[in-house]
């Protein structure tokens, strides 16, 4: 791959850049665009590579170390490519009371991976996460951005079946 194509792979698209500059009018500093910019990178690229962090630093006019620090601080940013489907199972108290561990062990048996791991085909990743703010539907998970409520092993199986 030539230098320019690798560069392109880590840069925000024109559309995202325009969206970001429009948003810039709402903030008195460019650094405040940090989370919005990182979300855009992750939306377009699936994760945030080192090169993409440098690109963001460049766009915001801040030093790259500030971007690295932010990416590593927040649980939802991926600094490594995640699985295609990231199954985030809540294991905080209300979900635990309603059987989160049963869901996690079912997933482990089914997919042959533990939390923080990705299946060999890159399709699934499991994460243990803290309270998702949906405890009335415990146990709960999110598959990428979407909630799955009132989980049972059967419901989860059906959901995973449905995924394209």
């Amino acid at each position, binding site marked *: 791959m030539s230098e320019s194509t690798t560069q392109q792979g880590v840069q925000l698209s024109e559309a995202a850049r325009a969206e970001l500059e429009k948003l810039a009018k709402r903030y008195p500093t460019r650094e405040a*665009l940090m989370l919005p910019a990182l*979300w855009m990178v992750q939306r377009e690229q699936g994760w945030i590579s080192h090169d993409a962090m440098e690109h963001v630093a460049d766009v915001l006019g801040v030093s790259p170390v500030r971007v690295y620090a932010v990416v590593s601080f927040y649980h939802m940013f991926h600094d490594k490519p995640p699985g295609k489907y990231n199954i985030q199972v809540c294991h905080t108290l209300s979900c635990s009371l309603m059987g989160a561990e049963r869901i996690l062990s079912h997933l482990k048996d089914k997919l042959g991976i533990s939390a923080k791991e990705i299946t060999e085909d890159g399709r699934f990743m499991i994460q243990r*996460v803290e309270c998702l703010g949906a*405890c*009335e539907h415990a146990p709960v998970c999110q598959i990428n951005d979407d909630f799955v409520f009132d989980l049972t092993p059967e419901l989860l199986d059906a959901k995973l079946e449905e995924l394209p």
Partner: protein
Amino acid sequence: MTQRILSVNFDTENSHTLAAYERNGGYTAFRKALRMQPAEVVEEVKKSGLRGRGGAGFPAGVKWGFIPKDTDRPIYLCVNADESEPGTFKDRYIMDRDPHMLIEGIIITCWAIRSSDCYIYIRGEYDATRKVLQAALDEAYAKGYLGKDVAGSGWRLDVTIHKGAGAYICGEETGLLESLEGKKGYPRIKPPFPAVVGLFQCPTIINNVETIASVPWILENGGEAYAAIGVGKSTGTKLWCVSGHVKRPGVYETPLGIPFRELLEDYCGGMRNPDRPLKAVIPGGSSVPVLTAEEALGVNMDYESLGEKGTMLGSAGCIVMEEGTCMVWALATLTRFYADESCGQCTPCREGTGWVNDIIWRIERGGAKPDEIALVQNLCDNMMGKTICVLADACVMPVRSFFKKFRNEFDAHIENGGCTQAQPVALA
């Protein structure tokens, strides 16, 4: 007596749309506010006795009054929609089902504190909710209720949603400010308080979603009418988030002061399994001291009554546990949370939450020595009140209360080399 203020329209069709909100009488209170002086609006909210619903219960009107009168700097409103206190999910309901009530509350609040820029900091996991809220904002802009000239008043107001990225600590108000500024969510040392030096070094008010959503009703009906609901200094209504072993978990609104027993039996349909009576309740989100069944069944749900029982109303996340739940294991799921979520800035918190969590799990799984209970208590003494923010305290409070009220279970675990229950919780 008005029983419901915030949830009246939760179940009406298309309740998230501007049309439905206006049909239900919405977007009239802010016009009234705009005809008043900002200071008069603040007075009205002071009169209402409305207290912050994010956890600390500080009177909203009083907080607004802390904005310096003579400042020439921009003033900001930050709406705290981070909602990450375990057991709490009410703000999600407001934003999903009545986002215009929040937006109208924002308009009134910004007018009162003389702000033209509001940010709604929403947790990253609430992406579907964020989209509903953004659509509602777009509608309000299109209608001229937000933007350069709010309803023809000549006053500008912009509202921007800022999406978090997974960090409990960004719910702490100064962690939130740092995060909004594009940094790690490290809480700031206070003072200075945000009302004086806040976002971008400017005067800033931070309020919870539910607090702001209560404001339109107060303007519409008057502070006194609001103060007439509830009991004593616990005025108005409250959204309760009930989860755990009840028949009907969910969000329920009642006036403050409702007996917990009534909330449990009449609203939640009682315990899910008649053979397993109530064992314990955490009444205000995971950070507050636990109540035994006996204490819970005798308490009223208001700031003062819960305070008298040695706990707090907090974020009103009631986590209900039935007989058969292992309290060591329950506590371990909480200490794990605090250890995971400590931002790591203060040594007593970073080291303390990690160490406490290790020991509690060792008690649960086996291998803890008898003197480790005393060690945990010692660690707690070195965490409580000794850190930049109260996350360390929020870990200590459940630990101390579980030890105090369920000590025999911890001792039995140590004696037996760990938990003897096959399932630490009874699965129905």
